[in-house]
């Protein structure tokens, strides 16, 4: 559901496209809830794709944040599909700046946390401000490394976009600001269900885990 592609240490042989292409296979794990029956435990072939670019831009004050809701609900940026046969593979990258992003799904539930009690991201606590945070250099605008997978009716994914301190004196009216530009490529994938995939197709498929599988 959420995947981070680290910088490769070496490249061997033919390169593979970063995004899903026509003819690729995807498998949704059984952990997807029965509230999403159109994908839970199912296997699909990508019938066709269409890449759509979008930029999200926010000027924010330092030591402050904005929760960017990727879903189609009121106040969201409408990056979720409306068709049960559509998968949105979203590549996310950032233009340079003094800011960072932490993910929640649904609102209030951190994607990235550690096992020690209380080790959850919190931009208001100095010791945990950078916990689970992605900075612009982690996923550059020109080389997007964060992949998100959205299907119809998935719970809202929230990107807490936080401008760090160090921008200058926080004194009205010349409070310090940063411009956060989130570059998005929505790879629209139209899915065809395959009831009885072969062992080879299963082995080649990209497995899409539900976000609950990322938190243990």
């Amino acid at each position, binding site marked *: 559901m959420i995947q981070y592609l680290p910088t490769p240490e070496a490249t061997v042989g033919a390169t593979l496209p970063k995004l899903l292409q026509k003819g690729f296979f995807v498998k949704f794990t059984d952990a997807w809830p029965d509230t999403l029956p159109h994908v839970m435990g199912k296997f699909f072939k990508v019938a066709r794709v269409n890449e759509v670019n979008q*930029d999200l*831009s*926010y*000027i*924010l*004050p330092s030591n*402050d*944040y*904005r*929760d960017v809701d990727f879903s189609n609900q009121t106040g969201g940026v409408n990056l979720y599909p409306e068709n049960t046969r559509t998968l949105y593979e979203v590549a996310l990258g950032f*233009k*340079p700046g003094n800011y960072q992003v932490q993910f929640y799904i649904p609102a209030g539930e951190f994607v990235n946390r550690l096992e020690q009690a209380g080790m959850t991201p919190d931009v208001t606590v100095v010791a945990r401000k950078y916990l689970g945070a992605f900075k612009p250099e982690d996923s550059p605008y020109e080389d997007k490394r964060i992949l998100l997978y959205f299907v119809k009716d998935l719970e809202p994914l929230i990107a807490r976009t936080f401008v760090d301190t160090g921008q200058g004196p926080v004194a009205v*009216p*010349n*409070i310090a*600001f*940063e*411009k956060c*530009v989130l570059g998005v490529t929505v790879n629209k994938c139209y899915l065809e269900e395959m009831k009885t995939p072969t062992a080879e197709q299963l082995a080649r498929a990209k497995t899409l885990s539900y976000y609950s599988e990322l938190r243990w």
Partner: protein
Amino acid sequence: MPSLAQVMSPGLTHVFAVEKQNAKIIPTQIIVDNEAGGAQRVITIQDVFIPAVSNGVPIPVLTTVPRLIITVDNAGWATIAAEALKELEILGQLRADIDVADPGTFVTISWGFK
């Protein structure tokens, strides 16, 4: 890369570029020609924008941040090239203000985007 020259009159504020929503404006050259000016002049490069709604500021207001102040002697020039400007970022509208409107003062700014 766009470039624009303006006479610093009438009025004290002169817009050079409106905000490019998905980029910062990076001035690459600023020239202030005060050769025919009436006196020493002070030019302020302003960054003007309305921030987005944030957790701490639910109703943002128009904000003006001075990014660079240039004092030019009477009958003088000032040229600031890209090397000195490369870290100067304008988040919103690029505006040049003058302390006193002067038909003998000219400001030329070139800029790009990041």
